[in-house]
């Protein structure tokens, strides 16, 4: 299956910004620097977020999953951003409602339908208050990487819900 790039250099802690666009710009620049996305990705993901917001009012702390069309991506990757202070994102599927977001999971998807398991595991993280609070607090990028990688591959062994 299509490989999803993820390592500790894609974990960014203490991101500062006033708006969701500033946060996205920062994270997209890092993905671009590593060659996973095209130069057009940053602008596309910001535009997409304005049109189709991706903030989710999850239990524990709010998350967002910004992403955009596959044409802006070179290789699939995921980047985790931990914001210094929560920033308001629009709530997915709502016209005007906003939610404070602490954790940003930026998705660079290169294939349309191949990432079901990874995405399902990601939603598993969103539904687990304990892990969200841990990720928000942990100070080691390596530990965050290890925990997220474990979760995203663990799907087959996960017990029934």
């Amino acid at each position, binding site marked *: 299956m299509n490989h999803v790039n993820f390592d500790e250099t894609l974990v960014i802690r203490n991101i500062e910004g006033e708006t969701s666009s500033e946060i996205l710009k920062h994270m997209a620049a890092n993905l671009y620097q590593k060659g996973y996305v095209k130069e057009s990705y940053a602008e596309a993901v910001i535009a*997409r977020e304005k*049109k*189709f917001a*991706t903030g*989710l*009012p*999850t*239990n524990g702390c709010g998350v967002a*999953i910004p*992403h*955009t*069309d*596959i044409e802006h991506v070179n290789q699939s990757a995921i980047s985790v951003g931990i914001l210094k202070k929560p920033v308001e994102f629009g*709530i*997915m*599927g*709502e*016209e005007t409602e906003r939610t404070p977001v602490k954790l940003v999971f930026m*998705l660079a*998807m290169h294939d*349309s*339908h191949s*990432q*079901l398991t990874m*995405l*399902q595991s990601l*939603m598993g993280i*969103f*539904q687990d208050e304990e892990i969200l609070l841990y990720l928000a607090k942990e100070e080691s990028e390596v530990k965050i990487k290890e925990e997220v990688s474990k979760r995203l591959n663990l799907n087959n062994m996960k017990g029934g819900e």
Partner: protein
Amino acid sequence: MSEVRKGKKTVLVACGTGIATSTVVSDAIEKMAKENNIQIEIVQCKVTEVPAYESRASLLVTTTIVSKEYPFPIINARAFLTGIGLDKLKEQILEELKK
């Protein structure tokens, strides 16, 4: 896809890009339909592509804003992502599928 039986409902699952959240939601609805022995056809698409399926769809399940009016019910699927209010959402979808 070509063997759409008469009476088999077409369920549209849409998100902004048609690649991320709609993938998760499509799979969840497919499992629900199977568990309940309901035959449905699921079409995963971008929300901007919904008008193309307007004539054959019975239900739209989406994670994004839908600004247009459609002749079929629209259900917000965010609970599949957050887990908050999931039972209620499943009930709501099942009710539509059984109609």
